[in-house]
């Protein structure tokens, strides 16, 4: 695993990166302010409506009310966060106050101040419904399994685990919180301007678009923060999937419990929701749609021409938003059609019919994601062969004898197992560490050349030094070179 600390700490150090990161945050906050304005000037349909429809509190039980309403204190926190962010930006713009590293800290603080309050929405939701520990633990376990899958499906040049966790956190806290606030405000706006009887369904369509847009923002921020790591469709796909997984986690915890409470009305129990959302459909839904969107962003990164980039990201957004809306709306219709000829509530319905009706919309998108992953991983395998050979010509860290072992996963495993049998566990683990460091170095070589940036050469030197250090340490022990 490559240590990315140096990359992360210097990620927003240059002006261009800082401006781009702040622009994304300002746009997200700007959308919030536009909703606020639309809510403020909306046509009133009833005489005693509050100034802001988003402040309308539902008179339900405590937990249910907190799920469906936005507390006024939270909106106050958002306002305080925006003002704090503006003050911090004013300080960062002051050359006398913000010099050197301080401007980087101020940039991070601005982003935290402006987006932090939206994360509170998700945190409140998890705290209110997190009282049922088994539900949280069960959802966390299934999410951890998918994160493990995402880490291992990348083949060559895997993203660091901390990057996956950051993407998961962005999805769980920011995407969920922001999209819930946007949606709560959109409810009042749609009701005021359109007053359509299908406003809840329109809201689902709106939610699909909003989740897509905030996911794009997350992948773009990862692109800025982790620089040369997001270089192809696979890296974007994995980041997008991790963001969708995080969103799915925060959404599942309350929904499983709310459906558990209302099962006498809806007929669907909390257990059934866990089965649908966190078991059979865990890789579908938001994970699939955000993966498709992330892959589009990853592809756009390696494409020349701004217009073409925008088209590719737009195509990904259309795919994700359309799929997301359809997977919430169309299964309800399919279900009504199926109910006319199939019995409900039995084992066949629970285990086969209902999941099939829910998943049928997602299947084409899931197949596309698998195809994107497959083509991307194959391209990475070819890139690995070239990058390892190229690094061997530099000499020192990778020798020509090691090249066939490094480019072939089966040979690598055989070398580790043979070393274990011949020299013991410690020697095998040491060899494994050397191989991992060598592959990290080759991955850096590939990503560095692909990103087309001159910066980051010191990272390559650090990785070469790490390989030589590990080899030296291994050489002082038993001989393990295959």
């Amino acid at each position, binding site marked *: 695993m490559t240590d990315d600390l140096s990359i992360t700490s210097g990620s927003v150090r240059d002006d261009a990166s800082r401006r781009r990161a702040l622009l994304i945050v300002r746009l997200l906050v700007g959308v919030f302010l536009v909703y606020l304005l639309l809510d403020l000037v909306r046509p009133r349909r009833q005489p005693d409506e509050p100034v802001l429809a988003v402040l309308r509190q539902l008179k339900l039980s405590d937990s249910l009310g907190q799920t469906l309403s936005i507390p006024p204190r939270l909106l106050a926190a958002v306002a305080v966060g925006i003002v704090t962010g503006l003050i911090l930006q004013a300080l960062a713009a002051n050359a006398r106050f913000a010099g050197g590293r301080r401007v980087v800290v101020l940039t991070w603080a601005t982003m935290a101040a402006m987006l932090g309050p939206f994360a509170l929405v998700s945190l409140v939701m998890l705290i209110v419904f997190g009282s049922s520990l088994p539900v949280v633990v069960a959802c966390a376990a299934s999410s951890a399994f998918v994160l493990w899958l995402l880490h291992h499906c990348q083949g060559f040049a895997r993203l660091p685990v901390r990057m996956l966790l950051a993407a998961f956190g962005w999805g769980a806290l920011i995407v969920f919180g922001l999209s819930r606030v946007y949606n709560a405000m959109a409810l009042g706006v749609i009701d005021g301007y359109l007053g*359509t*009887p*299908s406003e809840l*369904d*329109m809201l*689902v*369509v709106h939610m*699909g678009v909003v989740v897509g847009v905030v996911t794009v923002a997350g992948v773009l921020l990862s692109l800025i923060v982790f620089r040369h790591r997001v270089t192809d*469709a696979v890296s974007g796909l994995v980041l997008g999937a991790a963001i969708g997984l995080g969103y799915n986690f925060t959404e599942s915890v309350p929904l499983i419990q709310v459906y558990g409470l209302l099962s006498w009305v809806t007929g669907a129990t909390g257990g059934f929701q866990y089965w649908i959302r966190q078991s059979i459909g865990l890789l579908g839904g938001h994970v699939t749609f955000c993966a*498709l969107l992330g*892959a*589009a962003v990853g*592809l756009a990164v*390696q*494409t020349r021409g701004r217009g073409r980039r925008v088209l*590719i990201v*737009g*195509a*990904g957004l*259309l*795919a*994700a*938003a*359309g*799929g997301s*809306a*359809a997977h*919430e*709306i*169309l299964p*309800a*219709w399919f279900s*009504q059609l199926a109910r006319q000829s199939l019995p409900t509530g039995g084992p066949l319905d629970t285990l086969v019919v209902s999941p099939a009706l829910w998943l049928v*919309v997602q299947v*084409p*998108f899931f197949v*596309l994601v698998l*195809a*994107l992953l497959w*083509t*991307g991983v*194959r*391209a990475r395998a*070819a*890139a690995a062969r*070239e990058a390892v050979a190229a690094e061997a010509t530099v000499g020192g860290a990778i020798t020509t004898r090691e090249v066939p072992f490094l480019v072939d996963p089966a040979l690598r495993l055989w070398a580790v197992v043979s070393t274990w049998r011949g020299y013991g566990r410690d020697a095998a683990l040491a060899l494994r560490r050397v191989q991992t460091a060598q592959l990290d170095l080759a991955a850096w070589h590939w990503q560095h050349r692909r990103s087309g940036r001159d910066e980051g050469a010191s990272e390559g030197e650090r990785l070469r030094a790490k390989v030589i250090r590990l080899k030296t340490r291994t050489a002082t022990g038993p001989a393990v070179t295959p």
Partner: protein
Amino acid sequence: MNEKNTAETAGEVSSRQVRLVTIGAAFGALALVASIVVSLTGLSTPEIPQFPAMQNPLPSSFPRNFPTDLRIPDFVLEKAP
């Protein structure tokens, strides 16, 4: 030569992946249109069951002395401070 081949391969992979994303966009557009049509026509709205209306006024035979009524026995009230 090798680098040139790899670059060509990478270009082919990219265009294949762009095609896949475009197909995804077409699916997404279809799905979005279908969702909006289903929403606006109310096809996905569940049918609300018809509840029987309560007679008004209540019939004289309707029981008014339910066993769950709170009736505090007299001896409890006498002992109360």
